[in-house]
């Protein structure tokens, strides 16, 4: 909300600069978000929190300045309002007392509708409100001055000299002042004359009962409408106004008549109006509320040493009625402070005006407990370390994705979760996989000529788990692109990760997968568990993501391997003997797998063959078509005995023989 410095000074006896006042307001909870100073005046833009409708007025803010400074608040005085017009009648009927506890209607006759005097236009212009005519400007002036929305009808356009406050009937419509025809329903409160609705209560009046230059008599409305009702109506018809903004936060029930009087007096003075009949229907006094405030508790909660006298002074300054200054204060908030309901509310008021900056800083006794991370979180942090240690950069992509991206990655399934109210189709689905996000990140970087990179994300994916039930699981996705990237490189990354996480018995099983090349992809198995997929992404799939380069990726269902993770370590002693190393180079049919060859060698050589690791794979002129050349490095060793050359040679020959006999290998 905007207010001008000069307007504010009319209501409180201070001489401080606008800058000083802005600083005070900010530090008591009325954050001044901008201050524009000119030679004559200053405009303060203030953020008013939703709990303080009483601050949505110049007078309300003046009251705050008065509480801070202790300077006198100057409430405007209305003066004499004698009824001089008696021949015009109005009946007011409230059909729904819950939605409208109080309604006042006043006839003001013989008005001259014309442009406002300069001081009035200026007041409104300063705070960004467009002057219309003197009557409309007076209602707006009072709205901003006192926080009470007012509405002026053209009296002569009301049918039957009657105001009925009722719920709208099904099928009723109204053309509001902004020229839009709006459908009403029975949840909405309207102000009606004998025939039709003439205003959406608390929101906006109708176009045909609007005050115009030809208006002679006005009916001035000042009322209290139920906040929830106004809020629902305002949302339903998507029409918010300065009035509805205040009603939905709650206006001052007891201030309704005062605002009407104030406006009537201004209409007398600046529109030559003559005062007519006033009807004030409904509850006139708000339910009183007395709250007990313990000074001991206040000090305990704040960590302060305030005296009852000091607390009482603060509360009185805010316009609250306070009993004797003792350990327990009995406090009665005025009707414009309906936000004060319980002791804590008062403690906050005391703290605010006392000054948060004067409250000391202390260390809670609770400290001394042990900080703790859940094992799952620790493991995830460790996994991130292992992956960055292998040269991968971490990315974070959106949880909400385009349905098309899931479709393109072959991941759109029945259990995909959708957003009911997405901002755009790009964020309508919850990701079921991290793959689309990483492919999009890859494209972004490839398009920027970054030609060698590895990225990963360790984050949530989402799916339906049943009727209105949802599942969130952590996935890991690793993506590699670059001159040295290939299946085995990304496989190696995963192997290192699994080894470090202590996952034993993992395996890669050749299975074609939808976005991967058949024969160049695998399922990642952790024991019997399908933990993920790995492979080279098909060109056709990449084209859908607008990627023209090779991509290798792997997605692991991290949540599912969690139980297989074991980061406990035990020292197993150092080997007592240095192993003997031997190589075997062979040529074998291409379809014979390295796994088969390793197994055969181990079986034949026996337990003294500790390791048989593939050192090299080669093709070339010497290797016949359909075959491949392989070199294995073998390590012979026993933990309790130094092997003799003879033992080693014998085992090594057995291993070679097995390769020849089982697979027709040619040893080179």
């Amino acid at each position, binding site marked *: 909300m905007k207010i001008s410095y000069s307007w504010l000074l009319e209501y409180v006896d201070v001489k401080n600069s606008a800058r000083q006042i802005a600083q005070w307001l900010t530090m008591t909870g009325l954050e001044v978000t901008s201050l524009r100073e000119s030679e004559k005046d200053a405009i303060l833009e203030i953020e008013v929190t939703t709990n303080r409708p009483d601050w949505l007025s110049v007078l309300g803010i003046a009251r705050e300045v008065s509480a801070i400074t202790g300077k006198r608040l100057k409430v405007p005085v209305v003066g004499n309002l004698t009824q001089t017009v008696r021949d015009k009648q109005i009946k007011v009927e409230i059909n729904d007392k819950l939605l409208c506890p109080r309604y006042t209607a006043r006839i003001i006759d013989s008005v001259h509708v014309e442009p406002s005097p300069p001081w009035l236009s200026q007041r409104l212009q300063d705070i960004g409100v467009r002057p219309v005519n003197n009557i409309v400007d007076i209602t707006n002036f009072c709205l901003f001055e006192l926080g009470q929305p007012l509405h002026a009808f053209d009296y002569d356009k009301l049918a039957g000299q009657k105001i009925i406050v009722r719920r709208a009937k099904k099928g009723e419509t109204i053309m509001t002042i902004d020229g839009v025809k709006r459908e009403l329903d029975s949840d909405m409160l309207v102000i009606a004359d004998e025939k039709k609705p003439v205003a959406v209560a608390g929101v906006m009046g109708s176009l045909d009962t609007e005050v115009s230059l030809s208006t002679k008599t006005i009916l001035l409305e000042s009322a209290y409408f139920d906040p929830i009702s106004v809020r629902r109506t305002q949302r339903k018809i998507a029409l918010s106004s300065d009035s509805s903004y205040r009603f939905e936060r709650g206006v001052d029930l007891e201030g309704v008549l005062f605002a009407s009087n104030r406006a009537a007096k201004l209409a007398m003075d600046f529109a030559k109006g003559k005062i007519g009949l006033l009807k004030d229907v409904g509850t006139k006094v708000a339910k009183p509320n007395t709250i007990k405030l313990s000074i001991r508790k206040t000090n305990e*909660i704040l960590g302060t040493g305030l005296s009852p006298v000091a607390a009482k002074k603060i509360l009185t300054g805010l316009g609250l009625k306070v009993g004797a200054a003792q350990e327990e204060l009995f406090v009665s908030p005025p009707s414009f402070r309906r936000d004060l309901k319980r002791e804590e509310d008062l403690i906050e008021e005391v703290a605010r005006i006392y000054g948060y900056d004067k409250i000391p800083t202390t260390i809670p006794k609770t400290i001394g407990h042990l900080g703790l991370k*859940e094992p799952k979180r620790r493991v995830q942090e460790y996994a991130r370390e292992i992956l960055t240690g292998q040269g991968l950069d971490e990315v974070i992509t959106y949880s909400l994705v385009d349905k098309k991206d899931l479709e393109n990655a072959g991941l759109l399934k029945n259990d995909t979760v959708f957003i009911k109210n997405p901002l755009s189709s790009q964020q309508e689905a919850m990701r079921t996989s991290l793959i689309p996000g990483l492919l999009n990140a890859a494209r972004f970087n490839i398009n920027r000529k970054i030609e060698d990179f590895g990225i990963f994300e360790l984050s949530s994916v989402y799916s339906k788990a049943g009727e209105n039930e949802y599942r969130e699981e952590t996935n890991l996705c690793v993506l590699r692109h670059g001159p040295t990237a290939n299946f085995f490189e990304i496989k190696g990354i995963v192997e290192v990760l699994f080894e470090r996480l202590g996952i034993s018995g993992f395996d890669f099983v050749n299975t074609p997968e939808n976005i991967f090349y058949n024969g160049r992809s695998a399922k990642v198995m952790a024991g019997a568990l399908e933990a993920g997929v790995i492979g080279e992404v098909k060109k056709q799939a990449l084209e859908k993501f607008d990627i023209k380069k090779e991509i290798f990726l792997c997605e692991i269902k991290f949540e599912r391997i969690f139980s297989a993770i074991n980061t406990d370590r035990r020292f197993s002693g150092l080997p007592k003997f240095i192993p003997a190393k031997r190589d075997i180079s062979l040529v074998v049919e291409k379809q014979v797998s390295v796994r088969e060859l390793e197994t055969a060698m181990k079986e034949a050589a026996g337990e003294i063959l500790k390791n048989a690791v593939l050192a090299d794979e080669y093709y070339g002129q010497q290797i016949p078509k359909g075959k491949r050349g392989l070199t294995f490095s073998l390590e012979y060793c026993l933990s309790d005995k130094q092997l003799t050359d003879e033992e080693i040679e014998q085992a090594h020959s057995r291993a070679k023989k097995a390769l020849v006999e089982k697979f027709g290998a040619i040893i080179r």
Partner: protein
Amino acid sequence: MEEKIKSAQEQALSEISQAKTSDDIELLRVKYLGRKGLVNALFGELSSVPAQDKPKVGNLLNRLKIAVSSALDSAKGKTIDAGPAAAADSIDVTMPGRKRSLGRLHPLTQTLDNINEIFLNLGFKIAEGPEIETIYYNFEALNIPLDHPSRDAFDTFYIDDNSLLRSQTSTVQIRVMEKVKPPLAIISPGRVFRPDATDASHSFMFHQVEGLMVDKDIKFSDLKGILEIFVKRMFGEDTRMRFRPHFFPFTEPSAEVDISCIICKGKGETASAGGGKRCSVCGGKGWLEILGAGMVHPNVFSAVGYDPKKWRGFAFGMGVERIAMLKYGIDDIRLFFENDLRFLRQF
């Protein structure tokens, strides 16, 4: 045999100790460790050693080899080389080092880790909860009534009539309090979602860390104390902090917490040639808002079955992106989710 090994070792070490130049050392290396050197010759004799002594002698030979090799290496470090031989071996030290590749954590992860670390050291536990939440946990239990304007600040993505994407991680506090009896101190980091149109300072997805401490005698001054420690560790010891009254439905008294601007040090202007220039980071205010905080509202305690007369607590919350942007000087929130490696590799 054992004697032979022993005397070989003595001889070798004494000769090495007298070597003066790196050429001397290379000659000694050939003499002892070369293919036809003394040590290899001794290994050759191993086959003639009785079988039961073989492990022991083999072991001694290994040690000899190691002793000679390390003596040669350390002697090489001490020799003073000069002259043409050394010049011929010299290298261009201005050539780039060969770097092993080491990836980086996302700046948000790094920031989050920093924040977590500070609170872990202060005795907080990390608690996490679901991102897909119910209306109850996201609003009602947090004292945010339906049909109240205070809900406007928490516009939300809905999934069905009762489920939504959480708009703050305070939901985790409720879930923890439902299960755990006080006293407790937790922080809950995580993703949150709000349907805000994306621009340089808004994102429909971002990260929060919320904290909660409950005990019998928690005070507002304790909240100030804890957050002061946090602010100083996160942004530096000379950072000042201020509490401003504010309104949150789930705390009372509530506060917004500002820190002195880390760019202009709270002055509101940055030094420039023609005098002071208005600081663009704090907009000349000298303060940056980074946290919301307050004493837990009694209604929140009642919702989780804590007796509000018996227990008191404070809660606070911060946006991780906001903190990372201030800490690293990032001016556009969208950069975090674009995953441009030229950006990610700067942290």
